[in-house]
């Protein structure tokens, strides 16, 4: 089990939704993503909890691309991983942002 926090600068911002959104499920090869409003406006905080140890560099690359791709400033993302591949992680993150985006206050 490995847990870590990564904080990225992101100037892009969503019209944030009032309710936190969850995407995915915690089953083998999958993951659960929680998106909610964060504390700092121009940064995105991502908490990762994963059973696989020693893949910090790959997480960093996957999350870097995610932050570059999506307007995530001011968000707090929590990832509860159950051994998902990077492809699944990227897909779920995008889906979670979409779900968050679609619900307008």
């Amino acid at each position, binding site marked *: 089990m490995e847990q870590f926090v990564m904080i990225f600068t992101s100037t892009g911002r969503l019209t944030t939704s009032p309710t936190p959104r969850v995407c995915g499920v915690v089953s083998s090869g999958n993951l659960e993503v929680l998106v909610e409003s964060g504390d700092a406006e121009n940064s995105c905080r991502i908490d990762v909890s994963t059973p696989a140890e020693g893949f910090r560099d790959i997480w960093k690359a996957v999350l870097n691309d995610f932050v570059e791709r999506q307007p995530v400033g001011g968000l707090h993302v929590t990832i509860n991983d159950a051994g998902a591949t990077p492809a699944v992680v990227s897909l779920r993150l995008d*889906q979670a942002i979409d779900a968050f985006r679609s619900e307008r206050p």
Partner: protein
Amino acid sequence: MNKPSINTPIWDRERSNCKNRRERGAALANGREVAADDIIRLLETIIEPGDRVCIEGNNQKQADFLAKSLVKTDPALVRDLHLVQSVLALPEHVDLIEQGQVSLIDFSFSGQQAGRLATLVEQGRIKIGAIHTYLELFGRYFVDLTPKVALIAAQMADREGNLYTGPNTEDTPAIVEATAFKNGIVIAQVNEVVDKLPRVDIPADWVDFFVKAPTPHYIEPLFTRDPAQITEIQILMAMIAIKGLYAEYGITSLNHGIGFDTAAIELLLPTYAAELGLKGKICTHWALNPHPTLIPAIEAGFVQSVHSFGSEVGMENYIAARPDIFFVGQDGSMRSNRAFSQAAGHYACDLFIGSTLQIDMGGNSSTATKGRISGFGGAPNMGSDARGRRHASPAWLRAGREGRGSNSMPRGQKLVAQIVETSREHMQPAFVERLDAWDLAESAGMELPPVMIYGEDLTHIITEEGIAHLVRCQNPEEREQAIRGVAGYTQAGLARDKRMVENLRDRGIVQYPQDLGIDKRMATRDLLAARSIRDLVRASGGLYNPPNHFRNW
């Protein structure tokens, strides 16, 4: 008249030897029929030391009773055998080697016995002549590896010894033809002996003996994939394949490899491909086993013809009810033929697409891993350019123009694609700098690393990141970056030259989903034409009868 001199050549030694064997066997038989209890003695009586023996083992049908009986023969009598067969799939095949009754093997595929085989090779207890592709081995049956004794499997025999091999005819005609016409002995195990066969697949005068096996021969449902296990990533890759490859080239004739990645494509034809207006324009003619996951596409009218290497357990009634699609005899059951379907896949199909375990930066791919000698099967026959092909089609001509340039002699090229998720479970990368095949070749003393598809034949790679049109690359550097450009977060992918990959994207050589107008969010299981085995049964109108372990309702 002169008496024949001592130097007069004798031209029928082999025939005389075969006749002697047949006569020795006849003492144990009633006509051509042998009782199950006498089969071990028959094998000991007929087989001579040093014989080339083929124990029919295809990737589905297995002459399992004859294999088990051969293992029980006296090693003092039955020894120094040279096994020449498609598949070393049964534990008995390897038991025979362990008992020291086999000195040499030539084969194509070893499946579940890959680990034991590698151990025996490393211990020096067995020599491998070569690991072949199916067509290559069948070819050698008619040149320098003709079986002396063939132990085959059929569904039924009549009293004369005519055989009905039915939907799972598979390799039987190729084996029997080589053996029976070159002074060999053919022994068949059958499930039933009947007065009248539904049809004759193998005539009695090509068969020397048959035995009713105590239990029906085993058939592996190798090509059944439960749609419930198809992931969103596989659905995304299938969307990329359909839009970026099938629609792009207008591919009508094709072969799909085994696996969930291609099953996803089959299940997206009636939904995603139909929405794109591709019905009748792609995937009309197939060299393919009767995949249950193709049922919805057939029912939707996508498919015009399917010729099969073998059958698939549970598909018999569905096939029989669709004779316009499948190759069905007047008796109502399908006839498969591995040799012909492999030839069709090689020469008559525009596309081969399959999955693999590893791809290197030259585009070579392999399923070999250290400690497992798994062999090739048929993929290399279909996953290689058919240089002898002379008939044109739009897809083949276009690939040829892209791959060979415009200033050479006009010529087409086979489309050969690999579809893989960049990382498998436990983060095993599909993209590597060096194939494990090199280590295997070294440890097993092979002359060549066992490569399934050579880079020079590979035209496309599809991953969840996108599609690489390798056929459009101008030089090896571009190819390498195109491969890295779809290799995701593997080390090989992270080592890409980002600027060069962007250049390849601008030129349409690397395409990501957004470049193809694919919305990744649409990649959900809602897009599958069937989401479970039960859905497949329903789509077939109740004609598909899945094996019990695929039933969960």
